[in-house]
């Protein structure tokens, strides 16, 4: 297996920025798609930090910074598309 490149800056940025974007999108999908109930908005807010930091913690496992940006960027595109669909159908 090929060695893991360090790519500190690009991997850290990918984890911090794209991880945060992904976390907001998933929390958004929860907010729109999960069954209604009191204080749902609070749990949606609580979801952001654990999701963000899970990504930021494991992002160094990507083989290179480039791969981190591609995979996490792709995940963001998919997640925001799903969020958009949820909004569209929840109305």
């Amino acid at each position, binding site marked *: 297996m090929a060695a893991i490149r360090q790519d500190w800056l690009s991997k850290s940025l990918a984890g911090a920025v794209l991880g945060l974007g992904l976390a907001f999108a998933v929390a958004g999908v929860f907010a729109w798609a999960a069954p209604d109930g009191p*204080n749902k*908005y*609070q749990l949606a807010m609580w979801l952001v930090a654990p999701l963000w*930091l899970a990504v930021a913690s494991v992002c160094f496992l990507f083989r290179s910074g480039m791969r981190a940006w591609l995979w996490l960027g792709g995940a963001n595109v998919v997640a925001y598309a799903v969020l958009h669909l949820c909004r569209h159908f929840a109305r």
Partner: protein
Amino acid sequence: MRSDIVRLYKVVHTWTGIVTGLFLFVAFYAGAVTVFEQPLARWAEPPARTAPTAPEAAHELIIRTLATQPDARREFTLHLGGEDEIPARLTWQKSLDDRFPKGAALAPDGGVHVDRLHPTGLAQFVDDLHRTAGLPGDEHLGAALMGVVSAVYVVALVSGVIVLLPSLVKDLFALRLGANLKRLWLDAHNLVGLLSFPFHLVIAVTAVVFGLHEQIYDTLDVAVYEGRLREVMRADSPFTPIKRDQTPAAMLPPEDLVARIAALSPGFRPTTMHYRDPGTLGAAVRVWGTDDRYLMRGEGFVVMSPVTGDIVSTEYLPGHQGAYSVTVAALFALHFASFGGAPVKWGYLALGLAGAFLFYSGNLLWIESRRRTERRAGGPVTQSRSTRWMASLTVGVCLGSVAGVSVAIVASKWLSGWVADLDPWHRGLYYLVFLGSVAWAFRRGAARAGIDLLWLCAAATAAIPLTTVLAWAAPGLGLWAWRDTVGVDLTAVTMALGLAWMARVAARRAVAGPRDSVWSTQAVEAVG
């Protein structure tokens, strides 16, 4: 686990740890103290000047206060505890940030006796220190910065566990008390870190949310809720069922309201009742309380109409919440130790202090791994500037914050009655001791300053029980001592003894340890 992954994560762990360690030490030490902030605040609180009204007379007190005190008609708080535990039976503030509420008691002439209260604010000071790690300036900004620090801390935690995984079985319970002192510190760091990992992970993630929740809500509002989050929040507010209506209306006695809650939830012990728009048709009362059988957000509450006696919201009442509220309450509880009663609180105190040790030992390992050894260099060596600098900073910040907290606690009691507002004194004295300690550590070097400052910590902490002893022995001093806060004094005695022991060990290491260590006082002379 592949070795290149471990190597990678060792670097992640080192840098995330060294950047956040000192902030986290202060936050954890102050946080451990906040677990028992109520007895601590009580320890410093002077005796009330007027006897609080008996609970049975609370209804009469409410009627007379509303009739004679216009500024209590917006909001007031009724305190349900025993007469020793409460500032007054009934209190109110001019605004939310009014730190000197007024308190009312029944007067013999048929009116009420009103006093301006001067709570010490000690609990709030320690809590602010916990949330901001003492970062000066705007408190919200300090808390938000600590939210970011906590985020980095989560990464430090996960990376630390990844580094430890391959050698987990071999290293976990190994505490090698051999000649290699660094190995011992590493073993201790790993053992404490791994055993309290779940605690740290929960504290870290929740701390990110507490520090950054405003920013997260604002972003969600734009990214998810299309600018309608405020509407969503308003719809979910437990007060929404009660419409404001200024028509005067008689209210039921507080014991009737409490009885209705007891019928609904017998395990719930009410502590305070917060009235909004009292004496009007649109009055609402939020009854705060605890139920140790559940995970609570600090305290839970019920919202009622004091006019009709109807319970309008149980969404924050332990045992009567929906799934989402229960989950959020659990996350609060796991951070604030608001479940399971006293045993959990003692556990959190121990875990908090162990956490402070984790950050201290982490910095120490960073220093030791950058240490130049005589063995390798073949003769007397001087440590690099970054190593000496970090050693001084670690000693000054960690011990300075410990000493500063103890000094602020002691000063709170000694200055009570002499100064009108204790808050600037708590903060001023804390920063004086803290910054003085950091300066001392840089001036004297980590080895000598460590010993001096440990003795300072021990002395300042010992002053807590000594103040109590003096209050008993010499009543002429005007001090006071509470029988029910003897736990505070005993804890302080234990801490002071522990700190004195550390001072002695550090002094021994300074003369008997390896000369090339930053903790040695000999090396300095050897090199000149």
